[in-house]
């Protein structure tokens, strides 16, 4: 069972109901239906629907610059939604992902500032810390066999407390000091938080990174042995282990990849805002998970794609900014957001069901 899933991770249909032959039921289905059954197609249609809806409802969204703003918002969610999606395909999820972003940014800012070092030193130490947090999550999970909900809830609380307490202890305030005048800041900002001009529109570099990471994740998922391992451990851990998939390595490494994402987004926040408040980030983990789920990743693991969460994050950015572009009553902001997202998920579900029905 596990092996069939591994061999074709991008299978367009869930396992067929039975291996019957030549009775007409297993004949090649129309291309449209096969396409629709892919995990990312539902969300793609949902995103298109939301996009068209707001293009009609919000005239000011039709300018190129507005689209750049939507894409920027989507990219800061999307960069984290990618590793979170991979982890979810691997059968786990991470509640500490939101505050881990801030942990990383705080580490880099405080280390550079307090020791008066080149900011790159802080950036690299923050990377080590972020990867270590991910490895700790994975290691605890594998060692104890506890559900990822419990393990990462623990890490979430620990990081939230540590973020606040250490910042206060080190800086005497609850926010870090401004590092924008320090050596290396401009280079780091160019890498993590610059923007460039495309036909008179300022596009943020995070958008490029987001798409690069998405392409990389897609390649890993569909074309490498490691990608097969991810589907296998998410589908059925025991049968995966039985056919020789290194389950422990796969799970821990997926958490480490989430750590990498947290580092990257954390560095973006630090270098675009110069300082970090230690209480930020709480609640973001749910948005990352939501973007992955909207993108067609199952909460139970074993199914999903890397391109789906890209559309999921785009939809989030689109709805969040679209409401503002449309100039709607802001009291309803969160309610609108919730309704649009539920609607999108339902379209997603409907498309999947229609596609897999005959």
């Amino acid at each position, binding site marked *: 069972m596990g092996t069939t899933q591994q061999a074709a991770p991008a299978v367009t249909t869930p396992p067929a109901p039975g291996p019957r032959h030549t009775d007409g039921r297993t004949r090649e289905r129309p291309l449209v239906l096969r396409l629709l059954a892919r995990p990312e197609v539902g969300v793609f249609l949902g995103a298109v629907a939301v996009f068209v809806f707001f293009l009609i409802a919000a005239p*000011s*969204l039709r*300018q190129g*610059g*507005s689209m750049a*703003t939507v894409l*920027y*918002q989507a990219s*800061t969610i999307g960069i984290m939604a990618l590793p979170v999606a991979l982890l979810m395909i691997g059968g786990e999820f991470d509640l500490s992902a939101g505050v881990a972003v801030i942990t990383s940014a705080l580490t880099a800012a405080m280390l*550079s*500032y*307090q*020791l*008066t*070092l*080149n*900011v*790159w*030193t802080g950036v690299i130490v923050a990377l080590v810390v972020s990867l270590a947090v991910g490895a700790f999550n994975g290691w605890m999970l594998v060692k104890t066999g506890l559900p990822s909900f419990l393990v990462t809830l623990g890490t979430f609380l620990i990081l*939230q407390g540590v973020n*606040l307490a250490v910042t*206060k202890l080190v800086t*005497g*305030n*609850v*926010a870090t*000091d*401004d*590092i*924008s*005048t*320090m*050596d*290396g*800041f401009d280079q780091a900002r160019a890498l993590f938080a610059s923007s460039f001009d495309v036909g008179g529109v*300022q596009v943020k570099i995070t958008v490029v990174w987001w798409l690069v990471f998405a392409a990389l994740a897609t390649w890993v998922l569909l074309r490498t042995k490691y990608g097969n391992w991810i589907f296998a451990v998410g589908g059925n851990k025991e049968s995966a282990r039985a056919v020789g998939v290194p389950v422990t390595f796969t799970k821990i490494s997926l958490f480490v990849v989430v750590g990498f994402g947290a580092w990257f987004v954390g560095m*973006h*926040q630090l270098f*675009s*805002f110069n*300082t970090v*408040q*230690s*209480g*930020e*980030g*709480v*609640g*973001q983990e749910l*948005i990352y998970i939501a973007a992955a789920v909207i993108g067609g990743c199952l909460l139970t693991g074993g199914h999903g794609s890397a391109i789906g969460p890209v559309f999921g994050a785009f939809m989030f950015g689109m709805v*969040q*900014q679209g409401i*503002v*572009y*449309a*100039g709607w009553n*802001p*009291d309803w*902001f*969160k309610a609108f957001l919730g309704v649009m997202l539920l609607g999108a998920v339902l379209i997603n579900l409907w498309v999947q069901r229609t596609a897999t029905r005959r």
Partner: protein
Amino acid sequence: MDRSRRIPSALAVAAAAALVLAGCSSGSGGKKAEEGADGASAGKATTPRMTVALVTHQAPGDTFWDIVRKGAEAAAAKDNIKLVYSADPNAGNQANLVQNAIDQKVDGIAVTLAKPDALKDVLGKAEQAGIPVVGLNSGLSDWKRLGLLQFFGQDENVAGEALGKRLNEEGAKKAVCVIQEQGNIGLTQRCDGVKKTFEGTTEILNVNGTDMPSVKSTITAKLKQDGAIDHVVTLGAPFALTAVQSVSEAGSKAKVATFDLNKDLTGAIQRGDIEFAVDQQPYLQGYLAVDGLWLYKNNGNYSGGGEQPVLTGPAFVDRSNVERVAGYAAKGTR
């Protein structure tokens, strides 16, 4: 065997550390460029040691509350008071923290009344236990009803009205008021105050305060959606600094004004990025609340005569007086 392997790795670690400390140091900014100093100090009282609990509705990691706490600590140090600080944004939890202070038999409680009715019962218990309670920051319209001795804070409506008048003087026509926490009464009152006195039009914009990139893009989106906006009003210092970036990204000519201060904000006022800030002087709120309890215990005094609140704001900080304030803000006390 083992040792020979360890030595090179130990050397590598040492070399890396040396590189980090020597080669990678920054020539500008950083801790070395900052001068450290503490807040105001006014000697120390010889009155008997007492314990005061300060219970606020602070959300973790908010720069504003850090300043309140510093003021309270400064007063406690001066008055020979042991200060017990606790906070929880959830009203029920805050009530439990007040109960906890009563259980500890403290000599006085200073409390914020963000959600006054949730604290009504527990404040009654404090009264029964004979513990004096003062209010600070939020609850201006409720402190007397709940039987508090005195109140130190800013009338959010009055502060908003003051900001609205100032916008009129600046010749503003259309302002957007950015709320970083949807449903917070104090924040809503500020925007209502602005709306009341401002002769132009005011619009509200809700943003997700725990996610800065999202705050930035939402303000940018609003400015693009409505080119007529000439002033962005934020309700907290970090959001004002983000709004400055949004304005430049949206290619807008809007100016930024804000409530509340912090040290980065004073720099932005000096540079002219931000027009002015309405300061409610959080340090003063924390300081006076604790000092007020000390005066009550040791001399029977009531600030405001127990009838009127003691207002700590609105105080305007702009280019004309920012120099004086900047030094204190750098220490985290303004």
